[in-house]
């Protein structure tokens, strides 16, 4: 038996991994791209709110499933419990070809220049591992451009004066605003803010051989029925496969990175679609399993050479887990503001993303994606009934009258927020599961309060007659859909896991390319930055390979 040796293995066909697989295979390297999930389509679950990727009460539409996967979560009081993928505590993103990029909201943000220099900008913060990236925004700019043009982004950068400098416009024109976004756009102008259309990884016009968006309300959390949302599953991964150099191996769960008798990385072991344990060897391994699963795989790969897991000599793998503290406000309007025109979110302000006195960072504020009937049952002004006649009447009267302004506060990196492997609990295949512990930095709440105040003001100006804040950033584990930071890049091996090209410091042929690399997570959704990092890591490996470097 045995699989043919290849040049490169990529673990995970999500945002980062899909791009690396394409960069390597079109450069002529033979690649096996592993994905634990399968292909996902709209028809699998269509517009089912209860089984989507946002409201997962009856399961994750786009993986993973409750039958085979679990994690352990350590609570604030020190107790621990097992959580399933459909439960919030699991901190899920997705598991399918394309991962989160199949069902995401598709906001396409570039981080700002300051985001790469948080320590220089804000100085050290007590209790935080805040640091500068080993690269600047300018280093990543060409990769952002590749992501925008190869995956596809619609937007108009000229309307955002706070956006980082760029060489090229977006390839597609921006989306028009729906009713609530128009109100918020005008209100922001009146307040002296700088509203602009949210850049979207979604076709506003036909692009990349796929049609334009049909503006359904069920977009964020769902796959697209007409393939107008741009992810790695319908752009770079098909290109990789067409190159003839990349085999996509789906329903295959990588369990360990293999180390030979000389201490060299030689490939991986995995469980195939029939749950048989297999081996795949390669010259190079790139891990792109997302922040939690990448850390888990490295930590599960223990040997006499790497007794604490690969890349973990200095005990940094899995630390600095972060996501985003979502924070904002709601407003009830006298007239209906809901016009059923998806995807919903379209207007943003970046006025409070940095340089807020006394606050580290900040974040972008947007109108929210379209609400769904069940999720709306949890949206009520403080003190309202959460059931009964009054609750039902509110649902009926206000569903089309409520708008939300909300955004991702950039969390302050915290070393104690971390991914470990659990000493006893194992998944279906017998692989030790991820154990999440720690909490957000205690100062996150201050930034959240500021953003929520601004959001509330914004809604009031737009005409909301009743408003209330929903402040994020409380105690608890962060990660979830925006998970990042667990294998941060850096120049100093003592305070980082990889170098500035995503290579594990002490290992010449092992790379990471996903959200794990992020030193911090920006005041923005992270997918475009993760894609840019995919182009950076993949591009670096490909160009070195063409020069004869075999990473030995």
């Amino acid at each position, binding site marked *: 038996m045995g699989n043919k040796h290849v040049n490169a293995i990529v673990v995970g066909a999500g945002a980062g991994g899909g791009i690396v697989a394409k960069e390597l295979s079109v450069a002529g390297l033979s690649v096996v791209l592993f994905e634990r999930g399968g292909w996902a389509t709209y028809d699998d679950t269509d517009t*089912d709110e209860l089984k989507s990727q946002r409201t997962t009460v009856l399961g994750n539409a786009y993986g993973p499933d409750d039958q085979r996967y679990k994690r352990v979560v350590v609570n604030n009081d020190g107790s621990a419990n097992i959580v399933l993928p459909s439960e919030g505590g699991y901190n899920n993103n997705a598991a399918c070809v394309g991962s989160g990029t199949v069902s995401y909201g598709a906001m396409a943000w570039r981080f700002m220049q300051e985001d790469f220099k948080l320590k220089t900008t804000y100085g050290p913060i007590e209790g935080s591992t805040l640091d500068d990236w080993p690269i600047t925004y300018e280093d990543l700019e060409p990769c952002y451009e590749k992501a925008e043009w190869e995956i596809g982004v619609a937007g108009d950068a000229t309307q955002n004066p706070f956006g980082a400098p760029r060489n090229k416009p977006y390839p597609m024109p921006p989306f028009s605003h729906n009713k609530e976004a128009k109100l918020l756009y005008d209100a922001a102008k009146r307040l002296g803010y700088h509203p602009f259309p949210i850049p979207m990884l979604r076709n506003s016009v036909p692009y990349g051989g796929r049609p334009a968006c049909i503006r359904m309300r069920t977009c964020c959390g769902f796959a697209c029925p007409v393939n107008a949302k741009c992810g790695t599953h319908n752009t770079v991964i098909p290109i990789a496969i067409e190159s003839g150099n990349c085999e996509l191996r789906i329903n295959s769960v990588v369990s360990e990175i293999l180390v030979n008798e000389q201490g060299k990385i030689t490939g991986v072991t995995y469980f195939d679609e029939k749950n048989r344990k297999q081996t795949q060897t390669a010259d190079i391994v790139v891990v792109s399993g997302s922040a939690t699963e990448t850390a888990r795989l490295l930590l599960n790969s223990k040997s006499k050479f790497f007794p604490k897991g690969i890349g973990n000599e200095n005990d940094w793998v899995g630390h600095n887990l972060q996501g985003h503290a979502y924070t904002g406000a709601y407003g009830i309007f006298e007239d209906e503001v809901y016009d059923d025109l998806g995807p919903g979110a379209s207007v943003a302000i970046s006025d409070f993303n940095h340089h807020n006195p006394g606050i580290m960072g900040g974040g972008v504020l947007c109108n929210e994606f379209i609400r769904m009937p069940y999720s709306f049952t949890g949206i009520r002004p403080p003190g309202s009934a959460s*059931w009964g006649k009054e609750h039902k009447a509110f649902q009926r009267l206000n569903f089309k009258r409520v708008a939300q302004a909300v955004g991702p506060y950039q969390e302050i990196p915290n070393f104690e927020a971390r991914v470990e492997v659990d000493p006893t609990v194992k998944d279906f295949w017998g692989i030790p599961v991820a154990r999440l512990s720690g909490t957000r930095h205690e100062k996150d709440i201050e930034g959240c309060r500021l953003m929520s105040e601004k959001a509330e003001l914004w809604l009031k100006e737009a005409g909301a007659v009743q408003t209330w804040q929903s402040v994020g950033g409380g105690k608890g584990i962060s990660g979830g859909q925006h998970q990042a930071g667990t294998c941060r890049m850096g120049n100093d091996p003592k305070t980082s896991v990889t170098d500035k090209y995503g290579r594990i410091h002490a290992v010449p042929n092992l790379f990471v390319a996903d959200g794990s690399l992020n030193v911090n997570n920006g005041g923005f959704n992270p997918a475009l930055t993760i894609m840019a990092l995919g182009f950076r890591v993949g591009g670096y490996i490909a160009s070195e390979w063409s020069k004869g470097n075999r990473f030995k």
Partner: protein
Amino acid sequence: MKKQLKLTRRRFITLSVLGAGGMCLLSRCANPPLSPWRFVTEQESKLLDALVEQIIPTDEWPGGRDAGVTNFIDMQLTGPYARYQESYRKGLAAIEETCKTKFQKRFEELPFEEQTQFLKTMEAGKMEGKLWEKGFDRQFFRLIRDHSMQGFYGSPRHGGNKNNVSYKMMRLDYPVIIGQNRYNN
């Protein structure tokens, strides 16, 4: 005009509910042990009907009972919610038990207002006695509330939201029409 429309809709729903019940009775005569339920017992289903009707009461629109929320819960308890089977068995029995000692009646026999009061006590975590120890009152209340909301406001394919009743109430066009291109409007 509007009123008339609503009336007709309500009558339609009442009729359809009667219709289903009638059929059910017929099949029972022929085959008595057959139960329409997957997990809950006949008795538990009556209690659940009353509970979901409390969470989402009938007003000018049907409530949890007529929208099939009990059916939703029963269906999910043999699927994704199998992990809550024990809580339901224990919680429903605890409600029964408490009502019997306190009121010498079943929960579903209590006047609507008294039922509401009972649930408010559960919600506040103020139930007394061994049955409700360790916050089980609050926990079980939340379970019922969340699952009722899911059944009423989620897709009818999961056994609740009969005839898309909540979507109609919220004036959402369901099922969503696919293929409409409203980009240029």
